[in-house]
Every structure is written in structure tokens, then in C-alpha cells.
């Protein structure tokens, strides 16, 4: 029955969910390497990683949400709010760095709990909920910051922007943290019962409920953890920009996090996808932005390309979904 052993191994490798995104990443990198000789350098890769770390961490939360067939449009503005709270408390209110950071993270987690509560309790579509909180977080960011930029930040808040040296190339601690968070997310999704329940809930909420899974608790945990990832991303953002900026995180981050997830092969219909795919997807987005900048394409065209990219990726997802029924 079916193909022979070797063929099966080949089939499994080709159909492994991260292979497609990986090939796309390699092709993208090859393209920019040919276009400009400034691309293929260790320092440039270090720069790409630094640029990717914010979107990369946001995309972890986004992946969890999308795996449950939801979507979170508020990631960027919730992160911006967390960042403004962290920096304002420390600079303007004289709160020590650690409680200021924890409070900022707590607010982001609070948004996650709110999303989860509305999704499970009131059964509203995540799209509408997070479109609402996108605006709420945006407004709160500007109200709380009074549109001021906060500088002169305590060391602890800037920690993730600090660098260490590996054979002549500087890497930030933030990049290490991002990789650690990916490892944790991988562990949770692949090695624990919770991960299976996330997949099952996203695949078919009613079926999961009928098999005895507490789907409301799963969804609440997913949105709460997503909120936590936005809070951590806020801290990373401070490390990257070295200031508390009310205008940060409000343009590209939302779409980029979704693009990373979708390019990474996670289905918007829920229940299918991998966290490693998302990391590759985030790298694709980072390489694209970096490469386009290097070959002199203006920022506005980068928006255009990202927009096209995400629609293409979603089209592929839709096509695969229809084929597999």
C-alpha cells in the first residue's frame, strides 16, 4: 500500500512544513547576495537579526493566536503602550527599573487576558476585538506619553540592546533572548499536552470540546501568553531604540508579525503550522527589508513589497487548505 520506504522518506522531507519557508529564505538571501556585495557579511546578518528580534518575538504570540484560528491586529500598539509605560515610569515618575518593566509587561498581559476573555466569554471574533484594542492601545500610548519621547533610561531597561562579540561580529543579548523564547514556545507546542490542545482547538473548536478539552481555558492561555510576548517585545524595543518612543511600533509591526507567521507556513484557518516556521518567516521579512534597503529601494516600496508578499502567502495557504479539504 502506497509508495516504498525511500519514497516515503523523500515525501516526508518535501512535505515537512518548514521546508517551503526555508527554501524561500535561501532564495531570498541568494537573490540579495547577487544584487549587492554588501549583503553577505557577518555584520549585516547581525544587523538583520537585531532588526528581526522585535517582530520575531511579537510573531511568537501571533503564531499562538493564529494557530487557534484567531488573529491579533493589536500586537504593535500594545507593545508600544508597554514600552511607553516602562520608560515613562522610570524617567518621569522615578519608579525603579524592575517594577517599571514588570508593570509594562503586566499591562500587555492584561490586554491578552482581555482578548482571551472576550473571545471565550462573549464569543466575539478576534478580528474585531483586536481592531478595537489596537485603537485603545494607540490612544493610551499617546495619552500616557503626552507625545513625549523618554530618554536617559536606566541600564536595566536598555539591557537587551547590549552586545557581545563572537569572532569579530557583535550580537545583542536581545537576539539570544528571542531564540530562547522560540525554544520555549517550541517546547510548549510540541512536547506538552497544552500544545496539542492548542492545535486541536484551532483545527476544530467544537470537536476539541467534544473530545473533552477545555477549549476556553486553552484560548485564554493562548491570548495571555501572546500578551506576555508583546510585553517582552516592548522591553526589547527599548533596548533596540534606546528611547521610549510613543510613535514606535505602530506601522509595520502588526502586518510584519502576521506576514512572518503566514510566510512561516502557519495556516490562517488554524490548527496547522510550526513555531520554527515563524522564525524563518520573520527572517524572510527581515532579509527583505534589509536587502531592499541595501539595494537602495525606498521605504515606501518596502511596504508595497510586504503587502504583496503577505497576500501571496495567504493565497498559497488558501490553495493548500482547499486541496486538503
Amino acid at each position: 500500500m502506497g509508495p516504498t520506504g525511500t519514497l516515503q522518506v523523500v515525501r516526508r522531507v518535501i512535505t515537512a512544513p518548514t521546508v517551503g519557508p526555508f527554501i524561500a529564505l535561501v532564495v531570498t538571501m541568494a537573490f540579495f547576495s547577487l544584487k549587492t556585495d554588501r549583503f553577505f557579511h557577518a555584520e549585516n546578518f547581525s544587523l538583520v537579526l537585531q532588526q528581526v528580534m522585535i517582530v520575531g518575538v511579537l510573531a511568537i504570540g501571533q503564531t499562538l493566536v493564529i494557530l487557534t484560528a484567531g488573529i491579533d491586529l493589536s500586537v504593535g500598539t500594545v507593545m508600544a503602550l508597554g514600552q511607553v509605560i516602562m520608560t515613562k515610569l522610570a524617567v518621569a515618575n522615578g519608579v525603579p527599573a524592575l517594577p517599571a518593566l514588570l508593570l509594562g509587561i503586566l499591562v500587555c498581559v492584561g490586554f491578552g487576558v482581555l482578548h482571551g476573555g472576550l473571545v471565550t466569554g462573549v464569543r466575539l471574533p478576534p478580528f474585531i476585538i483586536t481592531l478595537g484594542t489596537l485603537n485603545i492601545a494607540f490612544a493610551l500610548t499617546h495619552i500616557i506619553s503626552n507625545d513625549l519621547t523618554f530618554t536617559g533610561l536606566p541600564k536595566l531597561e536598555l539591557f537587551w540592546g547590549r552586545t557581545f562579540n563572537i569572532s569579530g561580529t557583535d550580537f545583542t543579548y536581545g537576539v539570544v533572548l528571542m531564540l530562547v523564547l522560540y525554544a520555549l514556545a517550541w517546547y510548549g507546542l510540541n512536547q506538552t499536552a497544552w500544545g496539542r490542545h492548542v492545535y486541536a482547538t484551532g483545527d476544530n473548536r467544537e470537536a476539541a470540546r467534544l473530545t473533552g478539552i477545555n477549549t476556553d481555558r486553552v484560548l485564554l492561555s493562548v491570548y495571555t501568553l501572546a500578551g506576555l510576548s508583546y510585553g517582552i517585545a516592548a522591553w526589547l524595543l527599548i533596548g533596540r531604540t534606546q528611547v521610549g518612543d510613543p510613535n514606535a511600533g505602530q506601522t509595520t509591526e502588526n502586518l510584519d508579525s502576521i506576514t512572518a507567521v503566514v510566510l512561516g507556513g502557519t495556516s490562517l484557518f488554524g490548527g496547522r503550522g510550526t513555531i520554527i516556521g515563524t522564525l524563518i518567516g520573520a527572517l524572510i521579512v527581515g532579509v527583505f527589508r534589509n536587502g531592499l534597503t541595501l539595494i537602495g529601494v525606498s521605504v515606501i516600496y518596502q511596504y508595497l513589497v510586504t503587502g504583496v508578499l503577505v497576500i501571496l502567502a495567504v493565497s498559497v495557504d488558501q490553495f493548500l487548505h482547499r486541496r486538503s479539504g
Partner: protein
Amino acid sequence: MSAPEPILEARGLVKKYGQVVALNGADFELYPGEILAIIGDNGAGKSTLIKALSGALQPDEGEISLGGERIHFRSPRDAQRAGIETVYQDLAVAPALDIASNVFLGRETRRRGPLGSLLRLLDKRGMRREARRQFEELGIGVQSIGEAVGNLSGGQRQGVAVARAAAWARRLVIMDEPTAALGVKETGQVLDLIRRVRERGLPVILISHDMPHVFELADRIHIMRLGRRVAVVTPKTHTMPEAVAIMTGATPSELDNALTKERSAE
């Protein structure tokens, strides 16, 4: 059958959805070791009855007892804890997960020691071994227990769902149209599987539209019409056309006769 105690019994179940009466005083008995088929036209109340018995919904009136004890299921989880497993016609499995994960979905076992209690690490090997044993016992052939269920054929998927139910059911298994989405050959495999579940001593409630299958498998046939049980027949005492006639109301059942008498007496 020498009149043993029913393992699952329901009396006078009523369920209303606004103006619509889905169950109108339905009775039900399931005896140990039997396959009981439930037949009825669309809207006769089959699904509602099954949902009430499996905890997916709560009846407005009436009582259900399991092994002689009154029970109130508030969720499918309650029914599962009481030893009742249900196989649904289509939404049985999570396609992205492998076979073993599906069999253990919602009941995952963790590693022994701190790996399991602190790190919550799954005992993947143990679950695979157990799932494989379960499949061998039921005679279900699959290439690999680690295969994603989404890559299986419809019959194999339903096999996974049946194996899952058989693995966990301590009292009985409910199957709601388990062959509705399957081809001829696959249907045969699932029917064999249902027999094997009964051979293990688990009684089975089988909801089906397919009369030949019902007559081939069932020990007794519970016929629903207009939200009630109108008759219980057996393949030995009734033919297929007779059963269909009762189901559609073409042949008045005992209940119909009784109702007519009531009315003429008024």
C-alpha cells in the same frame, strides 16, 4: 436476551428549542453486550437523543440512569468520566496531530518523575506504544502510528476515532453515523470494527441511515418518530420495509394505536 438490567436507560426525555420540540417524551434502553441501532427520519430526534445521552446537551425533562444510577451530564467530559465515549460522523479528529496524539487527545500522559511533573514533558513513546497495542487489538492496519491523521484516508481516520473511543470507554460507545462519509470498502472496515468493539464486551449505540448496515449489525433497532421512540424491533422479527414503514409512520406502531385510542376516547 434474558431480561438483564439495562446499562443505560432514559425515561420521558423532553428537549425544546423555542417552538420546536426535538424530543417529546423519549424512552431508551441499552442492554449489556448489544449493538442497538437507532433509526428515524431527519428531525425524528435521533441526534438530540444521542446528544442528551453523551452530555453534549441537557434535556429539559426526563431522567437518565447509567447502571441503575441517576446521572446528570453537564458536558461531554462528564459522560466520558462516566465511561461513555462518542464517535461523531465528521468532527472526530485533529488532522495536524499524529495517530497516537489523537487517541490520547485530552488525556495525554506525561513522563514519570520531574520531567513530567515539573517540565510537563509528554510520554510520547508510551502513548505510541499504547495506541499501537490498541490498534492491533482492534485489527486496524496503519502504516505508522506517528503519521499525521490528515494524511490518512477517510476510513482510516474513522478507524482512529473508533479506536480512541474503544480505548477509553469503560461502559459503552456511541457512534453517530460513523460511515456516512465513507466509501463502500471503508464502510465495511468500520462495520467490522464496530463488531470487534462489541466482542470486547462494550455495548454500542449506532445511529445510521443505512438500513442494510443496521440490519446486518444490530441486535435490536430503536425506531424514533416525532421526538419519541415508537417501537423497538429486531432484525429477526421485522423486515427492512416493515421497519421503514414504522419509521415513516406508514404502519401505525403500538404507540400510534394507543394515541388513536386516547383520542377517540376523548
